[in-house]
């Protein structure tokens, strides 16, 4: 037998598929991966410490910068937590608008996941198609809040402003065109033999390991565990909508991506129902100018973000700034399984695993 040595190479943090600054230390025996250790902290912006010196309302734009691919969901988690802490009830119309913007964010995030998975594997065109479709959602965000990417459109107590007139034809035409977009992805990407060979059977994660490691969101559902916080512990008005939760069976990379594609279709169903059911009315509740929740109160609230369980834990000391704010970031916890699913695979599968676990480093590092 030929005498070989193990080689350690660094993938990232400056790398075309580093997803924002992920550093993976890959220990290789030839092309076989012996270990793939993720190193975080390259985007650590000390947001939890900053939260202790901002008022609750001032902190809202910061939360948009956690999961910058599905910003409205990130902000929604925070404002719902503060409203739960302070006991604020928001108007019906604001709830519906939040659901619509949140689900549009989810669609945008999943489209980018599919596109960036394609370009990481080498199918560059896939990214261009997904970005083109995503631009329509960016237009809708710009119409409502003025910002394309990091919109702090939701506020504590509701929404900043009501939806403009031009939003409704835009979202309706987007929903009408969505089945054609999915068909295009199917034809271009999912029906492609090469992509299937690169994804099927790669990076298998068992259901027990997924739950033990705290993996949530589409990654958990791809392993066959039917757990979606919108159904298990409904928050906001999600119990009024009829939608399915796509569940995979193998826990491999293929299932992870197909679950996300199916979730796009389900999100579109939720948006259609929300547009039909939405009542007229106010979009913002009366909130004190300086919010001071009760001293000693604390809350942990979680939502089903595009990446998994996004939780906010806030402790109040009676003042206008939080005493402690902790973000339970799904990407941080999901990345823990990267060594587990990459061991024994080939080096190119590390890239596939990162792309299909879909981490957002802004959230993982905070």
């Amino acid at each position, binding site marked *: 037998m030929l005498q070989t040595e193990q080689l350690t190479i660094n993938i990232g943090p400056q790398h075309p598929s580093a997803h924002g600054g992920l550093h993976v230390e890959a220990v290789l025996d030839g092309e076989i991966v012996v270990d793939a250790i993720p190193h*975080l*902290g390259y985007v*650590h912006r*000390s947001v*939890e*410490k900053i939260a202790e010196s901002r008022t609750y309302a001032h902190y809202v734009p910061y939360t948009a910068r956690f999961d910058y691919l599905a910003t409205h969901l990130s902000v929604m988690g925070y404002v719902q937590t503060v409203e*739960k802490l302070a006991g604020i009830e928001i108007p019906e119309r604001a709830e519906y608008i939040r659901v619509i913007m949140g689900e549009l964010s989810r669609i945008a995030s999943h489209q980018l996941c599919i596109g960036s998975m394609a370009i990481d594997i080498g199918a560059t065109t896939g990214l261009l198609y997904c970005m083109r479709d995503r631009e329509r959602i960016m237009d809708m965000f710009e119409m409502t809040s003025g910002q394309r990417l990091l919109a702090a459109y939701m506020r504590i107590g509701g929404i900043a402003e009501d939806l403009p007139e031009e939003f409704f034809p835009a979202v309706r035409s987007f929903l009408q065109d969505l089945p054609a977009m999915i068909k295009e992805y199917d034809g271009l990407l999912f029906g492609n033999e090469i992509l299937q060979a690169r994804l099927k059977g790669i990076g298998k994660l068992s259901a027990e390991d997924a*739950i*033990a*490691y*705290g993996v949530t969101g589409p990654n958990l559902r791809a392993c066959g*565990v039917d*757990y979606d916080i919108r159904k*298990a*512990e409904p928050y906001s008005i999600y119990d009024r909508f009829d939608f399915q939760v796509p569940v995979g069976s193998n826990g491999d990379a293929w299932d992870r991506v197909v679950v996300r594609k199916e979730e796009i279709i389900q999100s579109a169903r939720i948006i259609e129902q929300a547009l039909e059911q939405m009542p007229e009315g106010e979009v913002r509740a009366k909130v004190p100018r300086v919010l001071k929740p009760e001293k000693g*109160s*604390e*809350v*942990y*609230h*979680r939502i089903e973000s595009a990446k998994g*369980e996004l*939780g906010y*834990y806030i*402790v109040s000391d009676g003042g206008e700034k939080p*005493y*402690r704010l*902790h973000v*339970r970031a799904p990407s*941080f*916890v999901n*990345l*823990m399984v990267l060594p587990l699913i990459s061991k024994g695979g080939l080096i190119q599968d590390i890239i596939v695993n990162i792309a299909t676990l879909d981490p957002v480093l802004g959230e993982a*590092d*905070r």
Partner: protein
Amino acid sequence: MNTIQTVIDDIKNTWGEQVEMLEDKFFHMIKVPQQLLPELFNKLKQVHGFNHLANLTAVDYKDRFELVYHIYSIPDNRKLAVKADLDHDQPVAPSATSIWPTADWQERELFDLMGIRFDGHPNLKRILLPDEFEGHPLRKDFQVKG
């Protein structure tokens, strides 16, 4: 069907006075001494099916640290919050990684940002800050330059 109250009763029967019930609007919340945590977590996971440790964090109350665990049972759809106090000068707690492997990085983050040591953790190193960083920033006595 086991409700959360059955779980609480079982815990109280096993450990009696060491378990303190806390008032909270959203969670059933108990506080225990930190030495009891491994046994308590073992019972919660093996007997009562709490298989999802959603959140593990800590708060610096200046005279003590308070560890907070938010634990869920996915099959039975129940939730429970567990707290434990730690000494402020030398905060040490038992690691939960042998029971819920998801505690691995969450405990490393607490070590990095708050300086809490976890006994029995397989790899207690800094995770978010550079290794040569001095201090633990999320402590209340850490001065941030303006």
